[in-house]
């Protein structure tokens, strides 16, 4: 029984978190929206103090008509799609494997999860130098051992290389969540189907996969939100060259490198809308879970 007193106290206790997050969301968002309708090139003398010229939707139009826009959408889709395909497929298989009885299960689990705890700059640099370097990298040694010419991974196969690096980072996340979901599967159901003579493959498609459906959806949505925003991995490997400029990275370059704040802000608004579309689906699932 919540009294009037405890209700207002509760509101008061919630206030700091709500106010802070509201400020964190609204203030920068309003500024981005404001800049996106202005001509704002700080390096050419535009400043807030002198007032900025209103340019309407010009930045929005210029952002999507610039020659780097569609390549950036392509790079974003390829990276997000590639990483999702790899992490979800391998994640399901790995979860099933790790769920089997075996010796040293705990240790294997730790080995598989480890990459998730490696900071993005470290994993990107280690892959870039120690594995993908065309002269001294391990992959180059391996290629030479088989008599093949070493590949310049990050320039000749830049997108697949980035997908590999990012998948390595996110596979543990997918595996861990799918493993947790698989462990809640009723083992009697599986045993019953086995006794009824269901083949492993049909057990997989008719029992395991449907059971994992919700967890897979959650993995896809959460990863998509994080993958749309990957930054450090590109920053320290290619710096956006060789067709690896994603939408996020393009906006970063517009805003901080070429200091075209108006144009970058318009791009930022596009990115926010895109992320929100994904977020709506995720929130529905999470919200449904709250009711239960």
């Amino acid at each position, binding site marked *: 029984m919540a009294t009037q007193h405890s209700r207002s*106290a509760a509101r008061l206790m919630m206030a700091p978190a709500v106010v802070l997050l509201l400020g964190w969301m609204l203030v920068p968002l309003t500024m981005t929206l404001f800049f996106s309708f202005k001509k704002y090139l700080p390096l050419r003398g535009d400043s807030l103090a002198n007032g900025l010229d209103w340019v309407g939707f010009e930045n929005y139009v210029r952002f999507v008509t610039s020659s780097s826009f569609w390549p950036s959408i392509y790079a974003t889709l390829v990276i997000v799609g590639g990483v999702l395909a790899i992490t979800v497929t391998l994640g399901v298989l790995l979860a099933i494997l*790790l769920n089997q009885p075996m010796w040293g299960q705990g240790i294997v689990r730790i*080995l598989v999860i480890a990459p998730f705890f490696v900071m993005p700059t470290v994993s990107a640099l280690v892959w870039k130098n120690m594995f993908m370097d065309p002269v001294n990298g391990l992959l180059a040694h391996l290629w030479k051992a088989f008599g093949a010419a070493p590949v310049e991974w990050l320039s000749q196969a830049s997108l697949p290389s980035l997908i590999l690096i990012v998948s390595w980072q996110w596979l543990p996340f997918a595996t861990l969540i799918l493993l947790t979901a698989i462990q809640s599967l009723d083992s009697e159901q599986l045993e019953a189907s086995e006794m009824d003579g269901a083949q492993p493959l049909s057990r997989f498609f008719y029992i395991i996969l449907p059971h994992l459906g919700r967890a897979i959806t*959650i993995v896809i949505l959460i990863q998509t939100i994080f993958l749309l925003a990957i930054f450090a991995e590109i920053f320290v490997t290619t710096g956006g060259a060789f067709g690896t400029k994603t939408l996020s990275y393009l906006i970063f370059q517009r805003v901080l490198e070429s200091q075209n704040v108006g144009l970058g802000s318009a791009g930022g608004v596009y990115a926010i809308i895109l*992320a929100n579309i994904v977020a709506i689906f995720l929130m529905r699932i999470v919200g449904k879970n709250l009711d239960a």
Partner: protein
Amino acid sequence: MARSATTKRKVINTTAAWIVGLLIFFPILWTILTSFKTEAQAIADPPIFLNFDWTLENYGVVMERSNYMRFLWNSIIIAGGSTILGIIIAVPAAWSMAFVPSKRTKDILLWMLSTKMLPAVGVLYPIYLLFIKLGLLDTRLGLTIVLMLINLPIIVWMLYTYFKEIPGEILEAARMDGASLREEVFYILTPMAIPGIASTLLLNVILAWNEAFWTLNLTAAKAAPLTAFIASYSSPEGLFYAKLSAASTMAIAPILILGWFSQKQLVSGLTFGAVK
């Protein structure tokens, strides 16, 4: 007969799982091994796995040359500070949502979650500008605040999930005995919630430690944490693999160890309680 079949299956499973596990772990293992090699051995072809002259020299060089301790200290302050600050703000909020729920509680929780999904790059310039105006650029205080804010939704969510599991009857009993709201929170709830708070703390230290957008964009020399320190190795100078490996090993070791302890909380924390 059936028994030997299961044993055979177990052997196959074990072999397969260990091969995959070691393959996934290999880049980390290789980095750790390389950190103990000389630079020449680090790039040797064919690669040397274990029979090299183990040396600690690289660690010494990295610590000396790049002022490693300052970066480490910045990482500790920023990750620890933002987590503690976030928990102080989130505990009362999560408490009130879990025990005095109103019609809007669910909406508030979901809205908090939605702020987490705002792409950072979309608000990069405003934050950059505000930081310049407020003198927060390249300060530990500034980064601590930003990382606290980006992780606050996860902290509130995790705490809310844990608080929800505490039976309400205990609180009612305390109230009947005349405990004030403050006493209720500090003497009854908090001790019961310590395990939940601890795992929230752990996960958020990990997330803050590894955060690599704001830490790269809002720092220069003074407040840069380990993420930025490692990024400075992206323009190579001569032979540097062994040193890069030593620097990397030092940067990831503490969090790797913490992370292994937090495996279980990781799932419910990162899926906002949607998968348990």
